């Protein structure tokens, strides 16, 4: 009969009207500024540079300005200039560091490819999302001071991934130290003899995370 479909529809909307008052499955709104939805660990929005130490972020950046991310970034929003000098990194080894590291946040599309290609775990994806500004140019071009965030922050937003990265890095460093020690021993042993070969190359981190 004409109208049954209409009445059925009315019944459904009435059910939803009533349901939205008591059924949390129906009223799914999260009222944003007061409440915020839980961000899953995998959430990615905008990259940041990991520094080992919160007190001296510029001195302890993991980034060695290898420019792989600059090359791989699909929209090419990363700009890096290598430093002329070298500074000791977290493990005390002398490394090149980024004299300039800029990301144009109006171009970045949060694709995470820079993170995936980084061999040093130096750049990671952030959880920020309230990044609106009222300016079009200055505040959208972020330099390394804006981008650097300590490892503790990384642990805070991505505990699982950070733990895994830290574990891997310490293992690598240990291996490197042992290798260096072994190399030093070998060097010492060789030093005894003349005509020593060149020292072993520094440990190369694995190509892929």
């Amino acid at each position, binding site marked *: 009969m004409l109208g049954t479909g209409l009445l059925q529809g009315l019944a459904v*909307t009435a059910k939803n009207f009533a349901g939205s008052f008591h059924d949390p499955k129906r009223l799914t709104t999260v009222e944003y500024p007061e409440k915020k939805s839980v961000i899953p660990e*995998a959430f990615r929005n905008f990259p940041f540079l990991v520094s080992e130490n919160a007190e001296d972020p510029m001195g302890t950046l993991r980034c060695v300005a290898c420019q792989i991310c600059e090359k*791989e970034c699909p929209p090419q929003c990363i700009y890096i200039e290598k430093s002329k000098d070298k500074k000791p990194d977290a493990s005390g080894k002398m490394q090149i560091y980024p004299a300039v590291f800029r990301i144009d946040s109006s171009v970045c599309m949060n*694709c*995470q490819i820079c993170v995936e*290609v980084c061999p040093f775990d130096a750049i990671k994806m952030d959880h920020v999302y309230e990044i609106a500004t009222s300016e079009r140019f200055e505040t959208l071009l972020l330099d390394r001071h804006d981008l650097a965030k300590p490892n503790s922050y990384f642990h805070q937003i991505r505990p699982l991934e950070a733990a895994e990265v830290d574990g891997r890095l310490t293992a690598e460093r240990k291996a490197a130290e042992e290798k260096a020690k072994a190399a030093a021993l070998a060097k010492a042993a060789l030093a005894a003899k003349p005509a020593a070969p060149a020292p072993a190359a520094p440990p190369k981190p694995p190509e*892929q995370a």
Partner: protein
Amino acid sequence: MSPFDASPLSPSGGAHVRSVVDEFHGDLLEVSMGPHHPSTHGVFRMIVTLDGERIVKLKPVLGYLHRNHEKIGESTSYLGSMPYTDRLDYLNAMTNNWAYALAVERLGGLAVPERAEYLRVILAELSRLQNHVCLAGFLLQDTGASGTPLMYAFREREKILELFESLSGSRMMCNFQRFGGCRTDASSEWLGQVSSLVNGFGAFLDEFEELITGNEILMARTQGVGVMKGPAAVSAGITGPMLRACGVGYDIRKVDAYGIYPRFTFRVPIGSHGDTYDRYMIRILEMRESIGILQQALRDIPAGPIMDPKAKLRGFRPKPGESYGRIEGPKGEIGFYLISDGSANPYRYRVRPPSFVNLTLLEDLCLGHTIADSVVILGSIDIVLGEVDR
């Protein structure tokens, strides 16, 4: 004289009146719907010539969202194009990723581990669910249903998007598939969430159908509107639910049997009238089939690696050659055609977008119908301008 005659509408009003008269020339009224119109699904534009309310001519105008996607693909590395594919049909990043990955895998001769194949199927079917439920919502919005079905659709879609987010990091721009597998593995907890969503989805569909499918107004608005015949659709290259609504049982999941689809039992619903109502119902029925596929996939998914160990993330240089990877996307056949010259970038990169091809028959569908129908017909084609304009 009266104050009326001072108005610019009177013939003596001024020079600009001439153009006004020309616009209203004849009995026909030419209306430019879009690119800013509530119902053109983005920046699509239809130049509609009306006789009363009846459409006598319709000229689609495209390109407002053209972003040079294919040319950019030729100057970007193979990996670098992956996030761009998200932005083609931005509702279905997962299937776009898969189609592109499939093309590159064929080019580079990469195998995909078992678990990754299952993950791909799960994500593609979830994507199909959220696309179809969105489409139903948009279509009903276009018929004037005050947003209620759309809101219900978005409520469910949000659950799926949250799953996408917790797996890939982003709700819509997933960038998840990689050549030779997937980017991250799904935890068993995530799979559990998927399965609880899938188990509840049938009930949601039931409620949705109760709300609107039997509604006489909807039937009056959609039945017999925008009828497309099977042969015409085939010769126009139309694919996906649009084609199946005309009674052609063509589904690439069955025809190509890509991935691991032959392992699942599912049916391909086909319509008999080819009208807007059929196009709507086919999508509802496909969602029910997708639920079945998802349940089977979640039951059978094995443990194991998710990446082909041969696959290299950086410096991927396939041997010279060409390949075409296509899958059954929610909107139809989404395909990527690649030619490699052995360098790090594809020599030729071409997308076969289902929305664009499905749009070709728009004028034929709309002729003789009213302006209100044209909106509904356009809604039932299911276009995303990111894909149409590329």
